[in-house]
């Protein structure tokens, strides 16, 4: 029989750590998102001086496990006396800041590639047409490029932020105790691995389900041209396939 008082108690302790998980998540995808815009801009630049470092950044942060990145950001940076005596140290000595930084640096690499994928999908003719109408610079970006690129990138980005939600678990490596960390601590006190992990799983499942629905709704909102179809035409036919890119483009 499941031990309900224990499960109830565990759930309470895990939910108490939920704000930490959410703070880590929101801050890291925001910081990572801004960073990713700069990296994408550098990556698609025609100047090697910009595009090569961006390529290198994406390669390193996508190609190695986050656990190792987090360890090096938190414990590694502090090894250098230069860093410890710099003006950044009061900020960098805080575990929470390092956890956000570690997560943001990693997600920036992935997000930059996803954004680039979205930009590639913007048809050159549309940009030319917009230029022909006299649009340029920010107006072109805001009216034409960004809406199409974001729409294209959204399925892949939704996968990425779900992965980030799960990745916040690594913050406990740097003494920030979020949901998974607390779960592991309860296990090492009670050794009831299955009960505790199932409670934690339920929390992440709900969080990610909400994320899927939110990004799904946003996608629906951004693609009016794919849904309003005259019934007379589509009767008896299968709906048009969505864009071919599978949404598992996180890698």
């Amino acid at each position, binding site marked *: 029989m499941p031990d309900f008082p224990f499960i109830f108690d565990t759930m309470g302790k895990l939910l108490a750590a939920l704000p930490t998980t959410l703070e880590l998540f929101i801050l890291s995808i925001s910081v990572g998102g801004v960073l990713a815009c700069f990296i994408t801009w550098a990556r698609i630049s025609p100047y090697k001086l910009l595009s090569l470092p961006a390529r290198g950044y994406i390669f390193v942060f996508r190609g190695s496990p986050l656990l190792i990145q987090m360890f090096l950001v938190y414990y590694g940076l502090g090894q250098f006396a230069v860093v410890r005596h710099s003006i950044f140290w009061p900020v960098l000595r805080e575990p929470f800041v390092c956890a956000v930084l570690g997560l943001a640096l990693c997600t920036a690499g992935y997000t930059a590639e996803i954004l680039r994928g979205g930009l590639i999908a913007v048809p050159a003719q549309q940009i030319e047409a917009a230029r022909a109408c006299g649009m340029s610079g920010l107006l072109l970006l805001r009216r034409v490029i960004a809406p199409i690129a974001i729409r294209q990138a959204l399925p892949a980005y939704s996968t990425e932020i779900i992965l980030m939600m799960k990745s916040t678990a690594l913050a406990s490596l740097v003494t920030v105790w979020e949901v998974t960390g607390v779960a592991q601590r309860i296990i090492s006190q009670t050794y009831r691995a299955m009960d505790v992990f199932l409670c934690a799983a339920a929390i992440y499942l709900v969080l990610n389900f909400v994320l*899927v629905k939110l990004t799904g709704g946003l996608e629906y909102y951004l693609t009016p041209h794919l849904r309003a179809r005259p019934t007379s035409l589509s009767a008896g036919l299968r709906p048009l396939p969505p864009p071919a890119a599978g949404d598992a483009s996180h890698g």
Partner: protein
Amino acid sequence: MDQIMLLGFGTKGWGGMLLLGMVMTFLVTFTALAIGAVLGALVAWARLSRSRLARFGGEAYTTVFRGVPELLVIYVVYFGGSTVVTSVGQLLGAEGFIGFPSFIAGALAVGVISGSYQAEVYRGAFQAVARGEIEAARSVGMPTLMRFRRIIAPQVMRFALPGLGNVWQLSLKDSALVSVTGLAELMRTSQVAAGSTRQYFLFYIAGGVLYLVMTSLSNQVFDRAEARVARSFRGGLGRG
């Protein structure tokens, strides 16, 4: 100088152990990808099916295994697997506990997760196959299996390749979590080396670099494969 010795292949060097760890990481990931391919194909088929129950089951599978932390899936398979194997063993008259090998548990767990991502890749790829081609095949009288083999499968494989490359990289890094089952793959070997020599940064950086080596090598393999299958297709617009 001592640090270079520690990474070398001499009697004091961890080079050999780290390479073995890399081989193990590769084997776990490869087995997981194969298991995931079977599961992913089944789930993709369920999600595209006309049966509402199958669609629901397929969707539940992808939601659960993409939504739950990877570590948890590994724990459930590892400990759940042990208890199942042991009780089956006892039914058959075996005595005491039967361990569930770490390798199988790890590959199965990563495979189950990989299956949920692969299902999405196959689904997207199937939907990208032009309807007209399938209808044309049907109208010239191709039976279902032949249609699948000659028309659908080759195109799905081609459209799925870039997505599969991403899933491979994802699984490669998920396999690092299998270290909790005691399997001596790259991550665990790096950690054991760090703990035994107290050279934490050296071995974490070495581990990270070896993962980068594996991802860049596999990137090249996938790029070649994509170029290879692309030869038999007309250079479509925007497919580059």
